[in-house]
């Protein structure tokens, strides 16, 4: 049996868990957690089997007829190549671990069943998204993913901040979704198909301008989902949800969908050099800007959120710079270390009941497992040799270096920020200052996922290098062969470690970590002097607000929306109400004048007239009924006589016949 043939089934078990938990999760132990975990295990095992088969050269594309409107057939299809297999294993693996983690993290929540149902739907949608072989189907799952993130970010909807964060996530990504939908519609009306392969085959024949516009629209969708500048504002707010949800959003489902979209449409993106450049610059700028904000934040989760934005930027940079493999390798590694860091952060929040890292410190003794795994995650995030983050980040930087020196510069700055905020984050939480004496280690269900992810973050890069970069061969098999010459594959491994970029990268990270170590661990420079020597107050506030982009959006919405609303109000009061009132007045007039007249004179007249007529005629005709038998008999006989006369004249043959007989009788004598 080949599992790949049944890959369409992979999204089904979590969907089942969603339905079961939604309707009867309350009745199960732990709110149906085990249902979700069980079904996710099935998905994970199937994904793993699929991955092995794809690695062994397996490939599957299959379509079924979905529905047809006006003679056009829409297809439901599945595409399993190395890209979707990679995403399948990431999504199912991370969601399985997050669900196990939730056993501990969500243990005290009264609405667990809803949580597990929505988490299952979330991973099911994401699995469906990466399996789709056409844009329409992908868009359906894309929106489902958006819906689930809305539901889960607003899981504690009774908190106003959570409710508004959920709305914000939904609306901001919706801006991108609209662009994506526009792109899909243009592609469909031009080519008459949603299928990826067919679109790639036919897109090359179009004019460069057309390709540029369409791919920009589609990239708009990726920008919204993957929280790239300037649509990144929703992701920090999304921290209002449970931390486990943040883990899933950040390392597997929601934000990876945008990167996946760019990767999936890579043959199309690579047709336009301008769009690729835009992708790369968007990624690089996002990476640097978000990194700077992360460096300033004090919220344990928001630092990680900005870090995710920054690293998604790295992925976009990798893809845009033509290094398909490096971008996706970073996606994989980022899943490891970001899931790890988020889950660790959740554990810390659970233990300390605060999210402000300035109030934390000295947790290494209290939470040793969390601390050690976190250290691995932090070093991976910082891009230290030889942790996984180094290999993929270095590959991306090499690609950028070959591609465009400015991109490389921005990327290097972003990498520097990465190392700085990662070190600061770790040292403030687990560093030397003893602040929280009451913390204790998380339960096993919460540390087990940490350990597994730490192993991944520790080994994935080294192992890949040691095995001769199988990831590259694997992931490149998802691209058409004709694309070989475009993809500048520079994945750290086939260039020597002793070249400029890797050394520079190592130096950068080491330097940054050293600096952080000096400031936050040895505390050789008091932090107060640092604060005073810098125009930090204003700057920090500006940065903490995410460059004030939110404020700009609000002001813009207020300005445009306010005016728009006033115009609409005027239209409403004067035109719409006018029409409504006019119709109403006309109705009243018709009712009181016209209809009344018709009713009184016409309808009533007819009814009364008929009644009067029958009454009068009855009054006259009843006189006929005398009750005297003689008169009735007279009438009958007169009638009969009249009838007989009538028959005589109207031609009965009886009478002539009788006369004829008399003639015969006379003749007989």
């Amino acid at each position: 049996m080949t599992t790949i043939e049944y890959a369409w089934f992979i999204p089904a078990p979590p969907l089942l868990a969603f339905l079961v938990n939604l309707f009867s999760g309350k009745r199960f132990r732990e709110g149906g957690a085990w249902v979700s975990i069980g079904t996710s295990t099935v998905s994970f095992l199937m994904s793993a089997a699929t991955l092995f088969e794809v690695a062994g050269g397996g490939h599957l594309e299959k379509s079924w007829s979905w529905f047809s409107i006006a003679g056009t057939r829409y297809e439901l299809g599945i595409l399993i190549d190395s890209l979707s297999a990679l995403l399948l294993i990431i999504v199912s693996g991370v969601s399985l671990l997050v669900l196990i983690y939730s056993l501990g993290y969500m243990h005290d929540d009264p609405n667990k069943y809803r949580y597990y149902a929505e988490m299952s739907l979330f991973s099911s949608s994401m699995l469906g998204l990466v399996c789709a072989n056409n844009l329409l189907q992908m868009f359906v799952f894309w929106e489902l993913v958006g819906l689930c993130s809305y539901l889960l970010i607003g899981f504690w909807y009774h908190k106003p901040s959570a409710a508004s964060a959920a709305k914000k996530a939904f609306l901001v990504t919706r801006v991108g979704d609209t662009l994506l939908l526009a792109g899909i519609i243009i592609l469909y009306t031009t080519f008459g198909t949603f299928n990826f392969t067919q679109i790639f085959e036919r897109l090359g024949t179009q004019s460069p301008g057309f390709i540029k516009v369409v791919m920009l629209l589609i990239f708009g969708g990726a920008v919204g989902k993957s929280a790239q500048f300037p649509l990144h504002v929703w992701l920090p707010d999304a921290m209002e949800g449970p931390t486990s949800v943040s883990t899933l959003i950040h390392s597997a489902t929601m934000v990876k969908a945008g990167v996946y979209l760019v990767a999936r449409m890579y043959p199309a993106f690579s047709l336009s050099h301008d769009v690729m450049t835009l992708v790369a610059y968007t990624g690089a700028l996002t990476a640097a800007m978000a990194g700077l904000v992360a460096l300033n934040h004090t919220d344990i989760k928001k630092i990680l959120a900005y870090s995710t934005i920054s690293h998604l930027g790295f992925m976009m940079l990798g893809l845009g710079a033509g290094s398909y493999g490096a971008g996706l390798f970073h996606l994989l590694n980022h899943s490891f270390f970001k899931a790890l860091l988020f889950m660790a952060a959740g554990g810390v929040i659970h233990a300390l009941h605060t999210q402000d890292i300035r109030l934390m410190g000295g947790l290494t003794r209290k939470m040793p497992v969390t601390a050690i795994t976190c250290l691995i995650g932090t070093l991976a995030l910082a891009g230290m040799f030889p942790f996984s983050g180094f290999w993929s980040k270095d590959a991306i930087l090499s690609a950028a270096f070959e591609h465009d020196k400015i991109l490389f510069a921005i990327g290097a700055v972003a990498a520097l920020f990465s190392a700085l905020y990662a070190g600061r984050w770790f040292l403030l939480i687990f560093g030397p200052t003893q602040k929280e004496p009451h913390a204790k280690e998380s339960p096993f269900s919460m540390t087990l996922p940490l350990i597994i992810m730490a192993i991944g973050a520790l080994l994935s890069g080294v192992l890949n290098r040691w095995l001769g970069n199988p990831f590259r061969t694997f992931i490149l098999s998802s691209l058409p062969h004709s694309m070989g010459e475009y993809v500048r594959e520079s994945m750290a491994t086939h260039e020597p470690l002793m070249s400029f970029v890797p050394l520079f990268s190592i130096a950068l990270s080491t330097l940054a970590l050293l600096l952080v170590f000096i400031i936050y661990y040895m505390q050789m420079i008091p932090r107060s002097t640092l604060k005073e020597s810098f125009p930090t107050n204003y700057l920090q506030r500006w940065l903490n607000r995410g460059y004030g982009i939110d404020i700009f959006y609000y002001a813009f919405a207020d300005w445009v929306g306010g005016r728009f609303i006033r115009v609409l109000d005027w239209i409403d009061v004067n035109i719409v109400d006018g029409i409504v009132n006019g119709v109403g007045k006309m109705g009243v007039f018709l009712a009181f004048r016209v209809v009344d007249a018709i009713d009184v004179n016409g309808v009533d007249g007819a009814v009364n007239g008929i009644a009067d007529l029958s009454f009068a005629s009855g009054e006259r005709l009843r006189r006929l009924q005398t009750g005297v038998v003689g008169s009735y008999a007279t009438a009958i006989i007169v009638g009969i006589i009249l009838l007989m006369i009538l028959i005589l004249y109207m031609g009965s043959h009886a009478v002539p016949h009788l006369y004829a007989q008399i003639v015969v009788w006379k003749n007989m004598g």
Partner: protein
Amino acid sequence: MVPQLFYVALAVILFAIGALGVLTSRNAIKILMCIEIMLNAANITLVSFSVYNNNPTGQVIALFVITLAAAEAGIGLAIFMLLWRNRGTINVYEIADMRW
């Protein structure tokens, strides 16, 4: 063979006598008797046509008419008897309740 017209003429005469009796009588029994005369006039017509046309149907119908006439006389006389008991008259001009 006697021409059929004679029979028909007899029937007409009888019918006219009966009809005149019905129209002129006030006594209900007289009217009933006149109706019998009219029925018999019709019977004569039926039988004569039956014989002249070699078709027995007319005679059969005449038998039915006789039966009907007997039943009618029975019912009618019963009604008149009740009328006599309750009202003391069988003058049809006086029994004119079913009018306007």
